[in-house]
C-alpha cells in the first residue's frame, strides 16, 4: 500500500512546478498552464486525503468536480481576455501589459 505521504509529495512537486511556471513564464498562455498545474496538485491532494482519511464520505469527489469546473471557466475566460488583448496589441506577452490603469 502506497502511503499518503507519497501522494502528497507528488502534489507538492506539481504545485512547485506550477508556481515556477506562473512566476517565470512570459506569455499569458503559459501562465494559464501553470495555474492548471496548481489546480491539478490541489485535486490530487483532495483525492489522496479522501482515499486515506475518509473513504466513506464522497464529498471530496464533489469538491474536486467543483474545482475542475471552476478551472474550466477560468481557462475559458482567461483565453477570451487574451484574445481581446491580442486584438488590441497583437501580442499576449505579459510584459506588454504593464500599464493597465484604466
Amino acid at each position: 500500500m502506497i502511503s499518503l505521504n507519497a501522494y502528497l509529495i507528488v502534489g507538492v512537486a506539481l504545485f512547485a512546478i506550477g508556481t515556477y511556471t506562473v512566476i517565470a513564464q512570459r506569455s499569458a498562455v503559459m501562465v494559464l498552464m501553470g495555474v492548471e498545474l496548481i489546480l491539478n496538485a490541489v485535486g490530487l491532494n483532495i483525492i489522496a486525503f479522501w482515499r486515506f482519511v475518509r473513504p466513506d464520505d464522497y464529498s471530496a469527489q464533489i469538491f474536486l468536480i467543483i474545482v475542475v469546473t471552476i478551472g474550466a471557466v477560468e481557462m475559458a475566460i482567461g483565453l477570451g481576455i487574451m484574445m481581446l488583448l491580442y486584438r488590441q496589441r497583437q501580442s499576449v506577452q505579459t510584459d506588454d501589459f504593464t500599464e493597465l490603469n484604466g
Partner: protein
Amino acid sequence: MPLQEILQSIAFGLLAFIAIAGAIGMTTTMSMFRSGIFLMASFIGVAGLFILLAADLMGLLQVMMYIGGMLVMILFMVLFMMDPGGAMMAAMPDMLSPIERLFSAGLQQDGTNAHVPAQSGMHASEKNMDMGGTHAGMKMDDMSKDMSMDSMDMSMVTPVRTIAVWIASLIAVGLVILIVSRSNWHVVGLRPDPDSARAVGTLLLGKYMAGFEGAGFLILLGIFGAVFMAHARSGKSTPIEGGRTASVKALAAVGSEEIDIDMPPSTRQTMTGTDSPPSAAHAHEPNGSAS
C-alpha cells in the same frame, strides 16, 4: 510482499514520474506547442493516480475535462503566439539551462531563414502582422547574429527565472517538511466502495444539489462571457482601442498599416470564425472573399 502491492508500487512510480516529468517538460521546453503536449502527459499521469486512488470517476473527469476541453483551448491559443515553435530560442542553445536544452532537443532551428514553414499553423499574413505589430518582433531577423540584451529579452521565460526557481524550491521544501513532520494523519484502513460513481451521483443530486446547479450556472455564464468578450465587433472601435493602436503605431516603424483596426480579412475571419457562432463566421465570409 504480495504481487499486488508490487504492481501498485510500480504503477504509482510510473504515473508519478509521468506527472512530474510532464510538468517539468511543460515549463522548460522552448516550444509552446510542445509544452501543451507535455501538459497533456502530466494530466494523464494525474488521472492515472486518481484511478490508482480508487476514484475512477475522477480520473475519467480529468481526462475528459482537461485533455478534451482545456487543452484544445490552449493549443488553439498557442497559434496566436509569437514563435510558438520555439525556433528562435532553439537557435541559441547557449542561453538555455541544461534541462531546458534537454526538453527543447530536436526543435527546428531558426538559423538562416526567418520563415520556417513548419513552426506554426498560422497564415502568412497573420504571421507578418504578428512580427510587424510588436516592436520586439522587428529585431527578430538580426537576432540570431548578435546576442545582446534585447535578444535575451525575447526568450520565453523572464529573467527572473533563477528567483522563480528559488521561490518554487523553497515552497516545495517547506511543504515537504510540513508533510513529513506531521505524519500522524488519521489514516483508516477502509477500502472505498468500488461502485463509487453511484455514490457520487446520489450525493451530487441530493445533498449537494445547490452546489451542482451553481457550478452549472457558473459555467454557463462563464462560457457566455468568454464568447461575448472574444466576439469581434464589426468595424467599431472603442476610444481605448484607438489609443492603443495609435501608441503601437508610433512605436512600430515598419508594418504600421497592418496593425490598423482594419485587419486583413483572413485574420479577422480566423479570429471570429473559431470562437463565435457559425452564423457570425458565415456573415464575415463574403466580405473576406470579396475584398
